[in-house]
């Protein structure tokens, strides 16, 4: 049965990267289409009319939106290898809870690092480090958030690693100094081909964000 898999994405998006990592983990062949977020394609607007955002996975012509929903879909459809969610319902609930935590907390806190000054900036830095501390505690002594194997929460959070240099520069802190276990975990994930081949270079992401920031300030 011919199965067409298309991904509408943007190279620097940590959300799109989650889908790319999941597809790579499962060994799924797909067509990657880079979207210009300032000039969104008709296909994107048609496939995600509600949010008009990437990533969108199109499987046999049908769109799936929202990165963690896409990752769960991939895990359920291509269930013959590399399971991302555990099989035990309680462990699955914990994985969903923590992936939801990453979704609710990390991106917003990261944005604040770049968009605040003075006292607000100090508060943003404190908040971001608190979030990393909570995640570090949840990781504990486990090699991955998923336990012995790379799983759903690892996919949800590791893509932010490509943005760490950006967050650290705007936030004026070092993750290695504050929360070394997080860095050790990220480097462990980077030894996986699916992660290493997906995450862009941190410097490249930083230069991209600087360019975007300069343009938006110049408008």
């Amino acid at each position, binding site marked *: 049965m011919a199965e067409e898999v298309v991904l509408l994405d943007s190279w620097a998006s940590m959300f799109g990267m989650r889908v790319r990592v999941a597809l790579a983990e499962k060994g799924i062949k797909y067509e990657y289409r880079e979207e210009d977020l300032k000039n969104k394609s008709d296909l994107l607007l048609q496939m995600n009319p509600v949010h008009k955002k990437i990533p969108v996975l199109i499987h046999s012509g049908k769109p*799936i939106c929202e990165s963690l*929903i896409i990752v*769960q879909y991939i895990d359920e459809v291509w269930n013959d290898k590399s399971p991302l969610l555990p099989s035990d319902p*309680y462990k*699955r609930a914990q994985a969903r809870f923590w992936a939801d935590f990453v979704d609710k907390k990390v991106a917003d806190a990261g944005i604040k690092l770049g968009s605040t000054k003075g006292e607000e900036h100090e508060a943003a830095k404190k908040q971001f480090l608190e979030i990393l501390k909570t995640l570090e505690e949840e990781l504990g002594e486990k090699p991955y958030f998923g336990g012995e194997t790379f799983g759903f929460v690892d996919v949800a959070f590791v893509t932010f690693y490509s943005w760490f240099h950006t967050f650290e520069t705007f936030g004026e802190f070092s993750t290695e100094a504050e929360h070394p276990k997080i860095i050790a975990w990220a480097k462990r994930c980077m030894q996986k081909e699916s992660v290493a081949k997906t995450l862009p270079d941190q410097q490249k992401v930083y230069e991209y964000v600087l360019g975007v920031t300069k343009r938006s300030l110049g408008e």
Partner: protein
Amino acid sequence: MAEEVLLFGVWGSPFSRRVEMALKLKGIQYKYFEEDLTNKSPTLLKYNPIHKKIPVLVHNGKPIAESQVILEYIDETWKGYPIFPKDPYERANARFWAKFIDEKCLPGIFNACWGEEKQHENAVKEACELLKHLENEIGEKKYFGGEAIGFLDIVANFIGFWLGIFEEASGTKLLTREEFPKLSNWVGVFVSSSGIKENLPPARDKLIAYFRSQFGTGSTDATK
């Protein structure tokens, strides 16, 4: 093995009522603990240290938090009434709209009812645009889940019941039959469905009064 299911909730919260609806649909016995959100119990804080919120389900001593996560857990743990569809695409679709309701509709509707007065007209317009998506999604179906109540119907309990409460408390009408005939139909069917109607908060006036006391009497002006 004796099974122990505990639920920490608040009588007027759509989030904890979602969990009760799911438990009742599955026929699961549970012990309910009413929380005072101004004075959270040490037990709640122990079971949900990260967010310190209700609802929390505790199954044989193990806590699960976040209403949508709890609903997935309930469906995976107890057989019987199916809450989620079987097909992965339909499951993704249900999760998409559930996220839309919690992340977009709730704040949008709240803003329309209790936001800044000068933004009121815009807020109402935006909230109606959000509800339009749900009007299109329900289409000709009896329930969001098809022929029977499913995950998305349970999550949409906010639209099914609490939206009406918000409208009465704030004086802002959003879900009109003229603009939203299909969604209005669904509301009627939903609140009278077995498994749901017994699990809606009683004392409607008390609930309206509660929201008024929390958020004010609304951002509409008296001449509307």
